[in-house]
């Protein structure tokens, strides 16, 4: 069950949701996040660098993710991002929220023809 503290973050902006999903798989740097999001969504979601770092800034400030220094020398240019426990909770809560939205739509006769994915 999603905790009440994660509810405050919902609904989550699309970019932040995708970033959380990607980071749930492991830490990544900016370009890694971009290409992963694009690959996962089969090219339908492309985050531009501005959108990406704007979202990362917000998410760090709100405690959904945290910065992690990489072990190699390129620390400045390839800063890593890691999901926090709160981030995981929020991602799950957002997924559940969307799921219930979808379920609600399926129950509606007009759009009932939608096949389960």
């Amino acid at each position, binding site marked *: 069950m999603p905790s009440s503290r994660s509810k405050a973050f919902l609904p989550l902006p699309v970019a932040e949701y995708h970033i959380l999903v990607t980071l749930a798989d492991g830490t990544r*740097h900016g370009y890694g996040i971009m290409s992963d999001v694009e690959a996962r969504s089969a090219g339908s979601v492309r985050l531009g660098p*501005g959108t990406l770092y704007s979202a990362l800034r917000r998410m760090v400030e709100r405690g959904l993710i945290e910065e992690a220094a990489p072990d190699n020398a390129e620390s400045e*240019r390839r800063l890593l991002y890691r999901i926090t426990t709160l981030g995981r909770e929020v991602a799950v809560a957002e997924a559940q929220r969307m799921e219930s939205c979808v379920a609600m739509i399926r129950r509606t006769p007009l759009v009932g023809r939608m096949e389960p994915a």
Partner: protein
Amino acid sequence: MDAGRSSRVARLLAQLVRAYPPAFRTRFRSQYEDVIQRLAGEPRHQGWRGRLALARWLIADAAQAAPAEWKHLAQTRVESSASFTRHRGTGDRMDTLWQDLKYAARSLRRAPGFALVVVVSLALGIGANTLVFSVLDGLVLRPFAFPDANRLVAIGATFPKISGDRQYIEVLSPPEYLDIRQGTRAFERFTAFDLGNRTISGGDRAERVFTAFVWNDPQVTIGLPPALGRGFREEETTTPGSSVAMLSHRIWTSRFGGDSSLVGRAIRVNGVPVTVVGIMHPSVLLLGADLWLPMSADPQDIPRQARQWAILARLRPGVSAEAANRELAEVARRTEAAHGAEHDVYVGWRLEATPWAEALSSRGGIRMAAFILQGAVFLVLLIATVNVAALLLSRAATRGHEMAMRRALGAKTSRLTRQLLTEGVLLSCVGGAAGLAIAMGLMGPLTRALPDLVLSMGIEARPNLRVLVITLIVSVGTGLAFGLAPAFTLAMRRTAQLIGTGTSRTTLSRRGRRVRAGFLVTQVALSMVLLFAAGLLFRSLNELKRVDLGFAPDRVLTMRVSVAREKYPREDIIPFIERLVDRIGAIPDVQSAGAATQYPPLNVFQSTLSLAGEPPGSQTARQVDVTNATPGFLTTLGTRLQGGRMIDATDNEQSPRVAMINETGARRFFAGRSPIGERVFLGDSASGAAVEIVGVTGDVRNRGLDAPVAPELIIPARQQQVEGNNQYYFLVRTTGEPMLTLPAVREAVQREDPDQPIYAIGTVERDIGNSLLGRRAAMLFLAVFAGIAVTLACVGIYGLVSYSVNERVREIGIRMALGAAAQDVRRLVLRQTLVVVVLGVLIGLAAALGASGALRSLVYGISPTDPVTLLAVALLLPAVGVAAGMIPMRRATRIHPVEALREE
């Protein structure tokens, strides 16, 4: 190749990070750059399409994300500043300013006449100032936007034996260039060039273009890389046989449509194929040369007296112009010692380096005229500010009551002061903006009106940042200064005093009135100076138009023909030109035609002359203009034969060498006796054959309308001094409008040789007009400024008189009630106006006489202190001033006594 390009694209696109707030930038810049670099490296972002798609996507991304970041920043700011004001309780600064502005706007709306006069005054003053300063900045102060332009110099030479004027263009010979190169260490690089004309073909038409022949790539000296391709290699310019060329950026775009594949291809120059190796940087337009060819010769192989080169040099960093000039003086001294015996022109010659921009803009008196204009404009600005000051002052006085009330109601003096300042600054900023708009609007037309000569040098006049900043300083400064003055009075007085003055309505204190009258006196005096200057130039132009030219300038078509040496061997050049003259002369509308190497009003070719019995080229050699002409030339020009005979077709290569001399030459060289039959020698070499003078022509103005006639020799073209000279001007006298015969003239030339271009087409009248252009422009400007100044002064006088009429409504009413006639009242007001105007005129007279020295170079035929002009101006101003005072005065005489008394 592509990898390099994509990293360049990445660097460019990484600049998008600038769209974000500083905090975001510092935090994410390197990551942002890293991502863009990787994106640019992706296979899908290769090729121009891919790069374009990437750029489009990134820009859209920034357009979306950056505003969000700024909004975020603003929110955090508001939060923190809100807490700040809560704690400190002083957060209403901005509110106060806003309130002041609103109040100022409202109170100005209530006095639209006042606001309008102030804004118009400032707009005219600032507009004119900005306009002229922009032009001045472009032409004189910083005409060439070259890197480190102050280290770029032209080397000027002065030959006292020739003319005594320092010249920069076509003045030095290649051996002298080598002397300078080897004898100095102050310069890091030199470029020497000679100017000429070449016909380029290829494409649809043959075209004559201004051409520079160079040693050492000028682009390196100037410090700007070529726009495309490469510059000349050193060896290309010094060894014969290199067939390469560079084109100016402007001809590349205008004639070749900016086709980048032109580089590496061949074009034909005078029929010979030449490979284009590069396109010049757009800013590099040395004296308007469109085609650049290497000299392709060793400077050593060219004779010392072939002085047709100019030298452009770059000073080493940190080397002063004085140090360079010391070295140049030493070079001149050594050359004189080494070659002075053989070439006596070296006696006393001087070499000096002058900043390139200055050297060029000193041509044609542009510099002088521009500075006079700047002075005039400064006066206009002064008048405008004086007007504004007077208006603001009297307004402050009339608002004494209001201020007193507000102070009594608890407003602090500082608050009221700020209010007055805000009003002043608001007014002057509106005026400044209007002025800037005027300047921008007029810049284009003005630039187009500049002489072609100026524009062909590659000089541009346009409004720039410096001008903008200066305008801003001037307008805000005016507002502050004159908003402050009333504020100062306010601070000095006690409330009771202010209320006291307020009760008797709007009265200016005695001192205030005197200050205002003083301002008006200044305005009238300044207008007087401008009017006088405009008047002097107007009279000078009239004098110049009355000058006896010595020939008839009307209905003469002029054009230039350069015979291609590749096509006509030197002995065929003159016969070809004569055939052209014959064909043109046979056109029905043509009275006569002739050709010559130069024609009035401006000769350029000179030589030295020695009389029989004197050693040629010795100390006694005299300066003389030498014109080579076909027999029809003097007839076409309409010069008078004063003695002897005209040169004619019998004077050819085989016949004895003959010449005609003008009256000035006859008088100067043969004092008293007839020159006919005398023998002279030309040039400074002893090899020249004797020339017999066979005729005397009447003087023509050959050094411009305003200079004395120079001695001149006319030599038959077939016996020309410089063998193989291939450039002739054609003069064609027509029965009707000369330009209408141009098609027939072209056709005649084409029939003789279809490939022969004619160019520099004009009329003698136009040449004369052009020679007066600088003067005419200066006069026009001064007249406009004088007009503005007088208008502003009249506005001031009108203001003063109507103000004092208003002020004295009661007094006038009582006087009239007591039986004073309208005439008496009129006299009262008139006296007030006249005192101001006459005082202004007297001071103006003194100032005008003092300033007239600056105009000396532009004044012709009259004294710079011309009494006629002075008198006319001194009479005009009081007349205009009284007329301006008349308008409010009429109101005064119509005051009804009862109404006047009731007004209280």
